[in-house]
């Protein structure tokens, strides 16, 4: 408990110490380590503070149980890396940034530690405001920051309504398991949480906010912030229990979102918008896994409970891999972006030679993790979700079977498209040819240390994933078979349905490829290196295959979905796409503007009598509600 308090206190000290941003980020780093310890402690033993009665009937407390402990550990890993990264990276930004950075971390920690809806909402709002203020760091980011705030407040309103419904049905503000919940509560809080998770169609704010925000903030927006949404969904599941219809809803939203995010990422050309859409995709996968878990759990039979637990484990793994890999990706991308002062993927080519091997390797590792490349942790998570969806035949109802099968198709497509987009990102940025652009140098020891930390975590987390499963308490999904010793084999069901062993994969690959390669390398003569053949001539600067060209064929084939527009005006030409979901908000925007105009003209038009009548009606309605 002490570590939780210490963590919250240190974050607040970090806010106060922002006049010395170096110290402020160090404080955030210490607070993050403290919250990690608190999370690990909670995974072993739950703890809670005594209730503090604010007003009669309202008692608030903080504490952690196993679920919030797991999420706090995952979030803390990201906090540790980001706060350490920000000690150097933060020098490029104002002092206020350090305060808002600490504030948002405080809010997120409070969300996970909240035992009641009041604390939860305080944490939720503090987190949102802290991030909003960080997005405002850039001069031209007002519109995008307010768009983020609008979605954030829409999420908060849905949560307030949901928690009010929970209070009405249970008579308590507690959000612990066992509280009586209604379907209305579940619908409203789910809405609130999926808005935060950037689930389709509530994701349109991401492209502007992620690209405008400093990279450490973008990482917070993408990884820990959306993790709060996942945590909220899991918390709601623990309150309301398994239900079929809710699972179906989550799965439908999740699968569509995963596909949509991956599809948009495949066509994206901006250095930070591509990872932003990847967030939509990953959170869609997580939501699908939770939905499947709820659907399977609702049936109550033993085989379905096994599937439910495995799907939940998949959700945890994808959440973990996404948090680590996305934090790393934004950190590495931000490192390159600030070094080269460029925004587009096309213009940051050659990171390996220009900026350095560590950020390039960071992009490579995180990209491979999102591409489900073994033995990264992303591979394990995505293998798990596909294995879980492949077991759709176990459902009794045809509707559930069909939905699960379709969700499986969409998720498989999403994973394929994600690999497509990540190959683009890796191929152009990390491994792309150096165009001789001079990188701006700044102190980056802590930046590189953070990148190394997360890179190692993604690789080791994948290789030793059987041990992670054991720590999480899912040992029944571990086993051994033939030459693979127990517990290095991950089982997707019990009895066995599908198996994988990332640990053995590394051993086999090491033995079959790496060892022979090293032996060959020792004895072989020096290889002669030549340029790749390009029609017999060296490529000139304007002959390199560009990023838009990489995905144009996909955009053209799916032009109705991408809303692809080819424009040619004289000597200029370009291709543009538009996210279909934006049309929804354009319609909403038009409607609100017209309504505002109508209300302004008819009621708020300067006639005092009408205006007083309007105030009275609004007051009465508010009072009644």
């Amino acid at each position: 408990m002490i570590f939780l308090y210490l963590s919250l206190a240190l974050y607040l000290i970090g806010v106060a110490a922002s006049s010395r941003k170096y110290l402020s980020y160090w404080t955030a780093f210490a607070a993050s380590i403290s919250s990690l310890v608190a999370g690990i402690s909670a995974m072993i033993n739950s703890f809670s503070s005594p209730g503090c009665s604010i007003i009669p009937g309202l008692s608030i407390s903080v504490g952690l149980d196993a679920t919030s402990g797991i999420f706090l550990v995952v979030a803390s890993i990201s906090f540790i890396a980001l706060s350490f990264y920000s000690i150097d990276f933060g020098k490029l930004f104002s002092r206020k940034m350090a305060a808002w950075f600490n504030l948002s971390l405080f809010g997120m920690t409070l969300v996970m530690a909240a035992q009641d809806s009041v604390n939860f909402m305080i944490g939720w709002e503090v987190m949102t405001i802290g991030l909003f203020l960080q997005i405002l760091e850039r001069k031209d980011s007002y519109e995008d920051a307010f768009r983020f705030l609008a979605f954030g407040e829409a999420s908060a309103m849905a949560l307030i309504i949901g928690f009010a419904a929970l209070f009405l049905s249970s008579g308590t503000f507690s959000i612990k398991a066992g509280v009586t919940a209604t379907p209305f509560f579940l619908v409203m809080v789910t809405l609130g949480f999926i808005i935060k998770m950037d689930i389709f169609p509530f994701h349109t704010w991401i492209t502007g906010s992620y690209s405008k925000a400093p990279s450490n903030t973008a990482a917070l927006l993408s990884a820990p912030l959306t993790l709060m949404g996942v945590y909220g969904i899991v918390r709601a599941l623990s309150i309301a229990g398994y239900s079929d219809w809710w699972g179906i809803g989550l799965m439908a939203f999740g699968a569509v979102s995963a596909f949509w995010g991956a599809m948009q990422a495949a066509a994206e050309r901006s250095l930070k918008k591509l990872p932003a859409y990847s967030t939509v995709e990953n959170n869609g996968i997580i939501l699908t896994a939770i939905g499947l878990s709820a659907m399977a759990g609702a049936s109550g039979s033993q085989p379905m409970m096994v599937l439910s637990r495995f799907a939940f484990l998949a959700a945890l793994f994808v959440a973990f891999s996404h948090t680590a890999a996305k934090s790393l990706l934004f950190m590495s991308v931000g490192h390159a972006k600030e070094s080269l002062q460029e925004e587009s993927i096309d213009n940051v080519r050659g990171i390996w030679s220009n900026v350095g091997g560590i950020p390039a390797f960071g992009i490579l590792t995180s990209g491979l993790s999102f591409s489900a490349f073994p033995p990264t942790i992303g591979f394990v998570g995505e293998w798990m979700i596909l294995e879980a969806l492949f077991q759709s035949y176990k459902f009794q109802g045809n509707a559930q079977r069909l939905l699960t099968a379709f969700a499986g198709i969409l998720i498989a497509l999403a994973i394929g498209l994600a690999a497509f987009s990540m190959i683009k990102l890796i191929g152009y940025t990390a491994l792309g040819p150096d165009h001789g652009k001079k990188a701006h140098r700044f102190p980056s020891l802590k930046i590189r240390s953070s990148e190394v930390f997360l890179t190692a975590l993604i690789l080791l987390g994948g290789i030793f994933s059987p041990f992670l499963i054991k720590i999480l308490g899912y040992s029944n999904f571990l086993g051994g078979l033939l030459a693979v010793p127990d517990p290095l084999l991950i089982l997707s069901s019990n009895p066995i349905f599908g198996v994988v062993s990332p640990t053995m994969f590394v051993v086999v690959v090491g033995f079959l490829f790496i060892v022979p390669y090293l032996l060959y390398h020792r004895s072989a003569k020096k290889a002669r290196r030549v340029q790749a053949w390009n029609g017999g001539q060296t490529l000139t600067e304007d002959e390199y295959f560009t990023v838009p060209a990489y995905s144009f064929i996909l955009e053209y084939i799916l032009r109705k979905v991408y809303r692809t527009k080819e424009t040619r005006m004289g000597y200029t030409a370009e291709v543009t796409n538009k996210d279909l979901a934006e049309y929804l908000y354009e319609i909403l925007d038009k409607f609100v503007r017209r309504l505002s105009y109508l209300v302004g003209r008819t009621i708020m038009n300067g006639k005092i009598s009408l205006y007083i009548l309007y105030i009275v009606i609004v007051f009465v309605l508010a009072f009644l509600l």
Partner: protein
Amino acid sequence: MIRAVGIAGCDQDKLLLHDGKKVWSTSEASGEEWIAKQLKSVADRDKGITGQEVFGDGVFDFRYGPVTGGVMEAGAYHLYTYGERILCVNIDWSYKHRGLESSAIGLGVEDALNVAESVCGNFAFSHSLAMSRAIESALAIEVPSQLRKVRIIALELERIYNHIYAISQLASAAAQKVMTSHLQAIYEDLLRLNNDFFGSRFLRGFNGISGTAKPFNDEALIHLSRRLGSLSDRFDYLYERALESENFMDRLHDTAKLDSEKAEKIGVTGPTLRATGVREDFRLQDQDYEGLRCATSQMGDSLARMEVRAEEVFESVEIISDMSGELKELRDSGSAPATDNKSVPDGSGSGIGYCESPSGLLAYYVELQNGKISSVYAATPSIFGFKAIGESLVGNIFTDFPFAVESFGAYFADAAR
């Protein structure tokens, strides 16, 4: 003395003349701007089509060549694109420039013919014929009727094998493996036939000034007609099958479309122009081609160009058959055979020679001083063919590229000289 400085391709004016101070054209079009444009066109013809560029997010120059699997000769296509869609095309054939016109200066007329034949292997006879006509015109040599007919037979043979080759290339691009193999077999048979009757697979070294350079047995022409008839039947069968292949037709239909207005503005001739519905063929002006059926099509796409070529194959077979018959009649009436290569006088003068090569109008302007070449200028169809390729490719996608290029029958060697 008025000299030619070039043969441009715009507004159907092919010849520009100058006296060292002023430039005239053979058309009514004039004006300094027009002349400057024509002169630039002439000056640029050794380099290719350059200077066109498109800018924008993601637009880049996709260079295809100069030494690339899909490009048969040394030359480069610069396709400006943002991916798949071709936005603008520059074509660089400077790699193939050999300066053959300059190297002909100072040579005797027979040696100059050898140089002309070296311009482009596939059009060896067309070049030789146009050059010989120019020299004969300069020296006011009357060409006997029998020689004119033998030359027509050789020219039409060249047209047939070139058209078959172009169609086989289209079939190959569309992965019509069986059809491609059969067409290539016919192409090989045609080259063997050339060798058997003219002593060269590509009809080289046969033509001469006022006669043939090699002995020619016109009694054997009956065998030529028979063998050619058999090859024509084989091609007819294949062509009918090709037209039934929806996959093949789909790749050619609407690909690299060119309308007649654009085609005429570019100055392109031959099957490309006729595929846009324009009935223009230099052979129509030639009295020896009496009754020529000029094949045309309306669509202006790759399919239309293939259709025109196929029709011309059948037409050429008929022409050869008719010419063989007429030669027999001439021989029976006791006329001198075409192989009587008269001695060429060492005269001076200038002349222009034309011929309808397989890919369009080919023209030579020559000047002679005491029997030696003092100036040569060749206007080859491929220069205009490449301009047409560049124009028609805009808006198409990469996968249309081979279907476009092969349908025009343009060669870097022919353009670059």
